């Protein structure tokens, strides 16, 4: 279900009895004032939002002052896609070390094709510029969406891993605050690791 700007007067309906999935829509408001709608199920992929819903703070829409519209729409896209996939994505998430186990004893009965589909969706979601990627990480952290945080952090790690030390500094605008002696010592300690 695509995220669409909602009518400002719409509000969520009555609270849902615990355990049932509802098709109730939740309104999320970005930092720049745009409203988005998402199903409660998708919205609850964010532990932060889940708690607010359970505390009854969601009735007039949930303001997210840290998340700009462009990022919020991507986040909602992720949640929509993944909420349909697994019941327990938030319970034990995306630890790549556990990936093999999860694939074997899936409780979501996703077919191989569906899993491939999800994988390529995830890959294209994070195939964005650094600034956007960083914003996704910040949003996923703020909203407590572990699967998205894992996905985005892994992408940054993948981007860094083959770069030289200078390239990493340049890309992330990091200042080299080592003294010349310190830097020499660091490189000398594990000289075999540097082939630049």
């Amino acid at each position, binding site marked *: 279900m695509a995220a669409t700007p909602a009518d400002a007067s719409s509000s969520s309906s009555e609270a849902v009895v615990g355990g049932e999935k509802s098709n109730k829509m939740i309104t999320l408001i970005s930092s720049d004032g745009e409203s988005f709608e998402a199903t409660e199920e998708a919205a609850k992929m964010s*532990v932060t939002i889940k708690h607010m819903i359970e505390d009854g703070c969601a009735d007039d829409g949930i303001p997210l002052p840290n998340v700009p519209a462009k990022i919020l729409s991507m986040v909602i896209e992720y949640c929509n896609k993944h909420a349909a996939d697994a019941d327990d994505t938030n319970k*034990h998430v995306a*630890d*790549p*070390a*556990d990936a*093999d186990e999860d694939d074997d004893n899936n409780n979501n009965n996703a077919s191989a094709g569906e899993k491939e589909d999800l994988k390529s969706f995830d890959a294209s979601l994070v195939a964005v510029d*650094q*600034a956007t990627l*960083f*914003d996704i*990480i*910040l949003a996923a*952290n703020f909203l*407590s969406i*572990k699967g998205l*945080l*894992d996905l985005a*952090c*892994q992408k*940054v*790690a*993948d981007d*860094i*891993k083959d770069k030289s*030390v200078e390239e*990493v*500094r340049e890309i*992330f*605008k*990091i*200042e*080299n*605050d*080592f003294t010349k002696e*310190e*830097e020499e010592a*660091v*490189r000398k*300690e*594990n*000289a*075999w*690791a*540097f*082939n630049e």
Partner: protein
Amino acid sequence: CEEGEMPRSSRRRRHPCSTAVGPLNDDDLLREILLRLPPQPSSLPRASAVCRRWRLLLSDPGFSRRFRIHHRRNPPLLGFFVRNEGLPFLPSLDAPDRVSPGRFSLQRGDGDRFKSLGCRHGLILVSNKPKNQILVWDPVTGDQHRLDIPPVVAIHAKKTTINGAVLRADDARHFQVVLTVADNDDKQHRRALACVYSSETGAWGELVSTQLPSGVPMSNAGTFVSTYKPAVLIGDSLYWRLGGNFTGILEFDLEKQSLAVIWLPVHILEEGHYLFSIMRAEGGGLGLLLQTDFSIELWKRKTDCDGVASWGLGRTIELDKLLSLNSEENEIMIQGPMGENNVVFVWTHHILFTVHLESLQFNKLPGAYPLFYYHPLESVYAAVGS
């Protein structure tokens, strides 16, 4: 924060004056990113050269532990320790992951005489006979634990070979050592003994024993736990070869803390096949790898519904065809299968191949390898300094 939890209090540790971008300002989020670097040796050392803050973060022992746990299912093969007294290290990866041999060297003190017993989960178990000690060494961190062999085991260790195994607990914080030795004092009632050390308690457990069957009635020859090959971990049990008077397999169940003896397929002994290795069978459980010239046979031990065990032949792999070896010119030596992925090491004339048994994918390792017995070091390189 622990593995599996969300980074907490991320706002507390922002660096508002830093020129760095977004999440890299936040220590917790930076950790989440760096944790996901590949477990290759060069990853953390290189990242630590970016700036002081990264170096500080990466040098933290808590981060090292998280990094090791995060990558525990696929530790890379860093190289091999040659199984002789100096334990020299031969790196097997290409630059920049080619760890220099000097990085992993074990210093010997006066009177030390080291014999390596095995390597698992990045830890090496070494026996030091003159001092009645064993040593657990983590080459990546440099940590060493010297342990006195308990007297009940030491009495027998003097007369025969002692073998053992080291393994890490799942949380990578603690390790266990299992020592095994044969007791041939009473020729009518030969026994195998085992004793377990836990780094969590810092103590040795109770002695465990089991009767050894008598093999060929050679009255003076004892049975011993062979050190020709290291222990094999399959599920929750460790396995060693027994040789001498009785040739068979010794099993130590880590859950039940009990020893048992397992008989080999009858024809192996009759036909004089001694070139066999214990391995994790395809699909799990106890298996054997039998080398016959240039082929290997994979056997599996099954138990039927009445609890009767028997051995059955699974696959036969023709290594000379797989690796395109000229069988007339070459002789091959096989070690393993070892490690998480049942990898067999095939040595032929200074060339070393790794063969992944399940997929039959093979890889020729860079470099030249003299003929020795090797311990492969599969470890997550979670260190920054040396």
